[in-house]
């Protein structure tokens, strides 16, 4: 077993090696250097997402994120993308529920150019009308693809019934009818209100020097000020559903059906997150997809994949089991999954199972940092979830204290088997 004694926690990123600074305009910069790398990898966010979409305009925050790459007041679409791609760099954006996320990479010598372009894209997008129409066309293609995707339709059906009455019920991509109604004015108004440096997080790892890069970042981004930057709309009150629900979306001519069995889960700020994470690992991740994988795939051969996932965000969160099965085996797979959930909520996990997942979780810590891209993502999570800079160094101690009884109590707290939400999509047999 990987024990704390085998892991040199001081070699992990911590308060003495992670550089963090919050600047006057409200942006926060974090860096972790790796001098041998010829490249740098960055991640970041602005704290505004789909939650702030105006009524009837779902998909706006996502569409706006896509529009950021279509030109700025200084560079049109072709000039902008030529500048980025010609040095082998990338900058991409996506619109989430609570944040607009960005990520990118470049050779280290190109960082000043790329940071300058990132600022332009975030603060001075041109929103060209022709590109808005083009992106809407591309989205209409994606909506058609999604309508035929059993995986996507099962997921959308889950959100729709599970989060009924909450903004999370609507896909971040929006709906065909709402996206088609989004105008340039809508995008500009949203950008004018919410986009600014306050609450921005920028993280970077790779072959740069942390302090010099912080200076460079400040030199470039300090010009971006927005005293009247609006705050993200607050998450509405929401109570988890209290009844069982079942929905099947029929999509003809599909060889495989996708299945989701889910319930309420802890969010990323919850003090019981690590207890549930260990529980989830035993339920449907460890080895070949944990107990669920063993029951549904290994022993029954019912599915290529069958696993569980704790989806802990900043707001309401879910705990789900996923499977891809032959349409004829759908009911059998549901029965097998529910049998495993009964076991998970009725009896403590074994000492051996608990040892396995503790050992794995502690052993994974250094491996999860094998790349600079992974480190930049880790730094983003650290800041976003307001974690201590020594989070990783303290994690093994937190994990060691978790008991089988704690996992059982948490499992019973979240998995109410008379309140499961089950959705599937595929051919109806």
């Amino acid at each position, binding site marked *: 077993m990987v024990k704390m004694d085998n892991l040199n926690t001081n070699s992990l990123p911590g308060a003495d090696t992670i550089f963090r600074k919050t600047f006057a305009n409200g942006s926060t910069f974090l860096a972790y250097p790796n001098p041998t790398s010829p490249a740098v990898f960055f991640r970041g966010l602005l704290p505004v997402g789909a939650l702030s979409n105006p009524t009837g305009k779902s998909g706006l925050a996502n569409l706006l994120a896509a529009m950021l790459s279509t030109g700025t007041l200084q560079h049109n679409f072709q000039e902008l*993308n030529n500048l980025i791609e010609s040095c082998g760099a990338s900058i991409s954006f996506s619109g989430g529920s609570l944040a607009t996320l960005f990520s990118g990479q470049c050779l280290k010598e190109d960082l000043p150019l790329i940071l300058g372009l990132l600022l332009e894209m975030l603060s001075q997008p041109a929103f060209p009308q022709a590109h808005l129409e083009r992106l809407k066309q591309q989205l209409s*293609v994606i909506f058609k693809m999604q*309508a035929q995707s059993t995986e996507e339709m099962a997921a959308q059906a889950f959100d729709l019934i599970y989060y009924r009455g909450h903004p999370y019920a609507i896909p971040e991509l929006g709906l065909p009818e709402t996206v088609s109604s989004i105008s340039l004015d809508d995008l500009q108004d949203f950008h004018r209100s919410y986009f600014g440096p306050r609450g921005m997080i920028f993280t970077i790892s790779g072959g740069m020097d942390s302090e010099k890069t912080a200076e460079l970042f400040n030199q470039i981004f300090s010009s971006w000020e927005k005293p009247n930057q609006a705050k993200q709309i607050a998450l509405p009150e929401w109570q988890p559903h209290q009844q069982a629900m079942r929905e099947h979306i029929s999509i*003809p001519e599909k060889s495989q059906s996708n299945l989701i069995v889910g319930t309420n889960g802890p969010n990323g700020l919850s003090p019981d997150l690590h207890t549930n994470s260990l529980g989830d690992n035993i339920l449907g991740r460890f080895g070949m997809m944990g107990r669920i994988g063993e029951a549904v795939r290994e*022993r029954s051969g019912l599915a290529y994949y069958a696993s569980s996932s704790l989806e802990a965000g900043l707001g309401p969160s879910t705990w789900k089991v996923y499977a891809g099965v032959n349409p004829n085996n759908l009911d059998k797979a549901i029965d097998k999954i529910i049998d495993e959930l009964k076991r998970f909520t009725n009896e403590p996990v074994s000492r051996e199972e608990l040892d396995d997942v503790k050992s794995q979780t502690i052993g994974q810590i250094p491996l999860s940092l094998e790349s600079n891209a992974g480190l930049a993502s880790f730094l983003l999570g650290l800041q976003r979830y307001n974690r201590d800079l020594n989070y990783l160094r303290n994690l093994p101690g937190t994990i060691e204290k978790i008991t089988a009884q704690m996992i059982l109590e948490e499992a019973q707290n979240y998995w109410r088997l008379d309140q499961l939400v089950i959705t599937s999509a595929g051919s109806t047999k």
Partner: protein
Amino acid sequence: MQFKGTKNFSGQEMETAIARTGGYSNAFTSPDWTAYFQTIPSNALETALRFEADRMVNSLYDPEEVETERTVILSEREGNENDPQFLLGELVENASFEKHPYRNEVLGSTEDLLNLTRDDLYGHYRNYYQPNNAHLCLAGAFEIDEALELIKKAFEPIKSHEVIYSIPEPEAQIAKSQKVEIYGAEENNYLQFSWRSPKASDPDFFAFSLLESILSGPSSLNMFGSGGIGNRGSRLYRELVENQLVATVNGSLTATIDPGTYTVYVTCRDDHSPEEVIEALDRLIAEFLSKEVSLEEHSIALKQARANFAYSIDNITNQGYWLGYAQTFADYAWFTEYVERLEKVSRTDILRVARQYLDPAHRITGIYRNRNNGQNG
């Protein structure tokens, strides 16, 4: 079946032992090779080597496990069949070769998956899984001498037998231009264009890599980890997406032992028919073949290659992957000297290789049409 247990360890024992270290193991199959990999803390190297050595000769292929795994793989195939682009890709690859096994989908056809016997599988295993038919690659934190000792300890006791190879005849050219079509329920239309590409050990492969970068954007060198470069500056993107003919376009060039394929994938918009897109692509390729690429395009493609290489070595698992991959068709220097070799490619080389391979008379065009409206776009 290689994860289902050996005479020394059950599948679960091996899986659990690796998972307990925090590491992970898996396998994947290309048309040319099968790779088993483990990413583990450096102090677990001996365990990992012991399992891989054991897996090379002692797997059981229990008949009952074969039947369970058969339904699992059929289920994997069913999942893939849900995607119209998988179905189209299978059709296009099949048409791109007359006899060479590259024409077959790696996962296998449903018919073959239903008919394969335990003895078929075990015979394949016993023939090909030999130390003299394997490459072992390590990347990460270890001392070379110590690692070599561990490797010897694990693998030296395994005696190699003569491997009976089934060496296919390479197909240097797609015999003739062909259009293959498939109809389905999805509303979007899709296109795939396939041309022959040089084998990876052919010096022309490097010219083809730059050609690909300029025409459809550079392929990422990352099998593991993140990192890729966009293709908005590529000729195909500018011609097809910017002119609002298609929703997406990208290309793929794979390093293979024998001549393989370079494939361009298109997602059509509903306001332009597949035929209009084919016409536009034909015009663009004709223009591409008419003169050398510009100095600027050439230098951008080289810079992108340098960046792609830097991203590919960011991830240690990916470093190991490339050392092993390159060794199957050339040697590991193919990868470590990748950028230097690309720098030797001239614009004349690119044009020559484009004219040799992108001949419309030797291209497969695959079309997936919506059953109801595909004829009209």
